[in-house]
């Protein structure tokens, strides 16, 4: 580390907020997206850290997970709370959504009860006027005794003031004591617990009043802590007080405390937040249709289909090219295809290959570079625009607030396969990449439903598989290609539903489930913020480029090696004598039932084995082994029938997405049993699907 840097005073800033308050956006604005991602110790929840230099200080921002409260009932709440209490950040920012301060203030109040160096940050203030919301930040600042700053990540308003306040609070300290809320008739009980704890004051390192309140609300982690520090007897005394509350008021203590806190917030915001009624906006009115029992699902599915069709056509010309060809404009259709983004990139790579051939000639090296690397990576890179486009649409759905509406509209249908509307967001993400999709199942409240989802999300065709589907479809003529894509998605949908239903049924048999339930916040619908959308797109692009540059690059070299060398390690121009061929022939018999023989069988088997690691490489494996430029040519060289191509496509979609997904399934479930069971299910379903497709195909 440079001297200069270490000499700078560092300020650690924790950033906390309820889900949807605009935390990720503000965090990115504050840190300029120079973010370091790691995991919180011992868990797989991501920890984002970013640095910003300001006025000679080095501000280290730590993004805490989005949570509703500090009750330690979820991993995320535990992480956030532990960070604040143990690491004692110099400043804690607690975000409050200025569009609904009444609700989001709940977390801020709890933070103030346990910590003193707090800044309350009101987000999204660019939206308040349109909604007729007026907030007197000065008054709130006076009432709470901590700085209150209003910012907008969309316009950048208030950001500098926030940075100033951070420096100020870090050097001067915050409130002298944590906030004290008057809990009215509950006060005597708090006092009695406080007295018990105060006798042992030196041993408890957290604010006593806060610990007392939390213990009365019921807090496993703190109970454990008290037992450890003060012994079982003290804990039992405290729990007795808690039971007394329940007996006297006939209501659960946690309910009473939550109610008191909200009452406090109501009083606190009286005269501070003024709402002028503006009626519902037109945008809001339109989204109401999403809640209609049958119009809603229709709208949702229609939206999603449009998204995919638009993304496809811009990239690959598909399905526009097919439609034009069928209408009798073959020339136009071809132009659409050639001048699609994918077509242009493909032309670029071909030109590069030809140029290299002309200067390098035939040699092992040129074979490695041109066939192996450019052939492998290029065949995949063609799909970059598609990746960006799908990421763009997913980001728009997410950032506009449309995706939770889609979740509500599809909830009823989804309950039939045993999942709730909470599954929609992971499923949507799954179309992009299964890895974040599996991680996002954390937001699903029911733990059994979550496991079932983790096991079935891999059936959702991610972009990598989409890339392969499109490549295979391109080998079929016009309309059949389009039908194949449709068929592939339908097969995936059926597998997803069927397996979910069965797993649900098994869970139910074992008495482990209740009906899938929905409890979801619906943030106001709004125009997506371009910058935020761009971030999402850039993240996917980066992820894809990194993958193409590392895994796919290395795999391409490996594939080239496996298909250029014989088992005795001599170079050969005949792929059927190579190591890859020998290996793949062991598995080739599995493909006999769909009529593949000889070269056909081992090359496809080889491609599928490689596809286990990363799906895009199925294409690389095909092009490298056959020496073709594109998957289309490779499949033509192999002389596969349309029905065989369709069968292989189905298998390819349904069997294990990739290593990375398996790894994240393991880290999320921490169970080999679940992962191995999933692999077993996927392989069998894929195989049955393949045979089924072949038989249907022969009948038609």
């Amino acid at each position, binding site marked *: 580390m440079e001297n200069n840097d270490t000499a700078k005073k560092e300020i650690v800033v924790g950033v906390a907020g309820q889900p949807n308050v605009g935390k990720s956006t503000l965090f990115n604005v504050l840190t300029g997206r120079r973010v370091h991602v790691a995991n919180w110790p011992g868990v797989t929840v991501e920890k984002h850290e970013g640095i910003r230099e300001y006025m000679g200080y080095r501000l280290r921002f730590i993004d805490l997970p989005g949570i*509703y*409260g500090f*009750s330690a*009932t979820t991993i995320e709440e535990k992480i956030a709370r532990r960070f604040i209490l143990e690491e004692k950040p110099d400043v804690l920012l607690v975000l409050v959504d200025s*569009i*609904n*301060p*009444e*609700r989001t203030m*709940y977390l801020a109040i709890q933070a103030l009860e346990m910590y003193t160096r707090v800044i309350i940050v009101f987000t999204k203030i660019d939206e308040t006027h349109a909604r007729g919301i007026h907030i007197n930040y000065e008054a709130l600042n006076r009432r709470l005794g901590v700085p209150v700053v209003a910012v907008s990540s969309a316009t950048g308003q208030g950001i500098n003031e926030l940075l100033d306040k951070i420096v100020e609070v870090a050097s001067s300290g915050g409130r002298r004591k944590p906030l004290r809320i008057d809990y009215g008739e509950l006060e005597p009980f708090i006092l009695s617990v406080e007295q018990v704890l105060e006798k042992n004051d030196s041993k408890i390192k957290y604010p006593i009043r806060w610990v007392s309140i939390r213990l009365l609300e019921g807090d496993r982690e703190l109970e454990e802590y008290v037992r450890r520090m003060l012994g079982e007897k003290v804990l039992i005394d405290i729990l007795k007080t808690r039971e007394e509350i329940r007996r006297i008021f006939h*209501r*659960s203590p*946690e*309910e009473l405390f*939550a*109610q008191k806190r*909200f*009452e406090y917030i109501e009083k606190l915001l009286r005269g501070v937040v003024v*709402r002028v009624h503006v009626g519902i906006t037109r945008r809001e009115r339109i989204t*109401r249709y999403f*809640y*209609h*029992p049958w119009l809603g699902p229709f709208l949702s599915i229609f939206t999603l289909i449009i998204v995919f069709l638009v993304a496809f056509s811009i990239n690959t010309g598909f399905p526009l090219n097919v439609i034009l060809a069928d209408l009798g404009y073959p020339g136009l259709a071809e132009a659409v295809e050639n001048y699609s983004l994918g077509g242009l990139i493909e032309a670029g790579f071909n030109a590069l290959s030809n140029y290299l051939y002309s200067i390098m000639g035939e040699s092992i090296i040129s074979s490695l570079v041109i066939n192996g690397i450019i052939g492998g990576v290029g065949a995949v890179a063609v799909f970059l625009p598609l990746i960006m486009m799908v990421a763009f649409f997913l980001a728009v759905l997410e950032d506009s607030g449309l995706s*939770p509406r889609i*979740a*509500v509209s599809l*909830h*009823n249908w989804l309950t039939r396969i045993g999942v*709730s*509307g909470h599954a929609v967001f992971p499923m949507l993400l799954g179309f992009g990449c299964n890895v974040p999709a599996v991680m996002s199942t954390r937001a699903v*409240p029911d733990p059994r439903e979550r496991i079932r989802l983790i096991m079935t999300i891999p059936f959702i065709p991610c972009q990598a598989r989409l890339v392969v589907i499109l490549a295979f479809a391109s080998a079929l003529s016009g309309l059949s290609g389009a039908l194949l894509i449709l068929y592939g998605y339908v097969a995936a949908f059926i597998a997803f539903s069927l397996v979910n239903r069965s797993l649900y049924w098994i869970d139910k048999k074992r008495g482990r489930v*209740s*009906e*899938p*339930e*929905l*409890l*979801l*916040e*619906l943030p*106001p619908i709004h125009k997506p913020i371009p910058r935020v959308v761009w971030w999402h797109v850039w993240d996917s692009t980066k992820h894809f480029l990194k993958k193409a540059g590392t895994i796919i690059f290395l795999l391409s070299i490996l594939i080239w090696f496996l298909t250029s060398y014989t088992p005795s390690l001599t170079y050969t121009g005949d792929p059927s004598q190579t190591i890859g061929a020998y290996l793949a022939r062991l598995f080739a018999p599995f493909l006999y039932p769909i009529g593949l023989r000889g070269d056909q069988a081992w090359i496809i088997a080889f491609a599928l084995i490689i596809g286990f690691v990363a799906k895009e490489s199925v294409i690389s494996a095909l092009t490298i082994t056959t020496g073709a430029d594109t998957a289309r040519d490779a499949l033509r060289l192999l002389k596969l029938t349309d029905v065989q191509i369709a069968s292989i496509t189905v298998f390819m979609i349904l069997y294990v997405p990739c290593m990375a997904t398996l790894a994240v399934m393991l880290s999320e479930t921490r169970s080999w049993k679940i992962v191995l069971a999933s692999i077993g299910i996927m392989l069998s379903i894929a195989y049955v699907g393949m045979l089924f497709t072949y038989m249907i195909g022969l009948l038609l």
Partner: protein
Amino acid sequence: MQKPLLTLDTLPPGSNAKIVSISGSGGWVYRLYQMGLTPGTIVTVIVNYGAGPLVVRVRGVDISLGRGIARRIIVEPL
């Protein structure tokens, strides 16, 4: 005379009600409290088609509730 108590899922769209209590226990109930659905709170039903999830407005936020959860929320219509 006090009005009769109903469950939230039976209220028509546009109606207001005060939450009296929430039956049952476990994570759902806790989550409801944290989202601001505590006894004494006024809720406005925005969407209720008699089947499928409801949408209610609580403390300025729209929240969608499955029917099973709504059935556990006892309210006093206003």
